[in-house]
């Protein structure tokens, strides 16, 4: 006699597999890879050529917590009406969402410089891309070591 397959789809095995998959989805936000970072940059700037230089990024080489990493970006620009910085975008190449923020300087800005605090999910590169009013695009990249990422939920408190 042939053994019939159980009609109920909710077997012990499928329940365990489902739980496992659900747990993985919730607990581990997917980190960006190089392709998705390139895609995010292309969505913002198109495929215009990007040159290194003119951007000075200050980040700690080692950040103990990824929750607040101080970032200062300074761009060489006379900041006149004819020649200024149109916008600056900050990307992190291994964060779940690569884009961190978009900054724009208005006509009342004295220099193209700002500071803020960013979140990093782990050791990775932070990329700043600046578009000037003449359309040229500059890029800078800095590596940051992160001890505890912003996305890690620790079981213990310290």
């Amino acid at each position: 006699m042939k053994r019939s397959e159980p009609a109920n789809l909710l077997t012990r095995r499928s329940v365990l597999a489902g739980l496992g998959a659900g747990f993985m989805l919730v607990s581990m936000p997917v980190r960006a890879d190089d392709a998705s970072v390139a895609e995010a940059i292309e969505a913002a700037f198109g495929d215009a050529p990007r040159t290194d230089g003119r951007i000075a990024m200050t980040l700690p080489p080692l950040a103990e917590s990824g929750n607040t990493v101080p970032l200062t970006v300074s761009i060489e620009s006379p900041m006149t009406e004819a020649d200024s910085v149109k916008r600056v975008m900050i990307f992190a190449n291994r964060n779940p969402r690569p884009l961190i923020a978009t900054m724009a300087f208005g006509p009342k800005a004295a220099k193209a410089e700002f500071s803020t605090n960013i979140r990093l999910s782990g050791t990775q590169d932070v990329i700043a891309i600046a578009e000037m009013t003449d359309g040229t695009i500059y890029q800078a990249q800095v590596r940051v070591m992160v001890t505890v990422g912003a996305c890690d939920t620790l079981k213990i408190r310290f």
Partner: protein
Amino acid sequence: MPNTRIRVPKTALKGDAVEIRAIIQHPMENGFRLNSQGTPIPVEIISEFVCTYDGGEVFRVTLEPGLSANPYFSFYLKATTSGPVDFWWKDQDGTITEASAHLEVV
């Protein structure tokens, strides 16, 4: 209404670059954290920040969840005339928080 702290110097020399600092109290939930029941806390962020002075914009930011809780910015404005320096934050639900300080240019 969230707390804000802004730092604008009382006086400045004409033509000087004046450092401005602004911070707003906000959790900036990134959507990846779990509550005590194990369900994800939805994204809740400030989405825009603008600083204006003397009829023009100084600095504008489009914020993403990649910025830290209590988003902080420091930047420089060019002192031209005495007047208010206005700060404006908008969260993802459209709630607007404003702050203002007077800058005396001598």
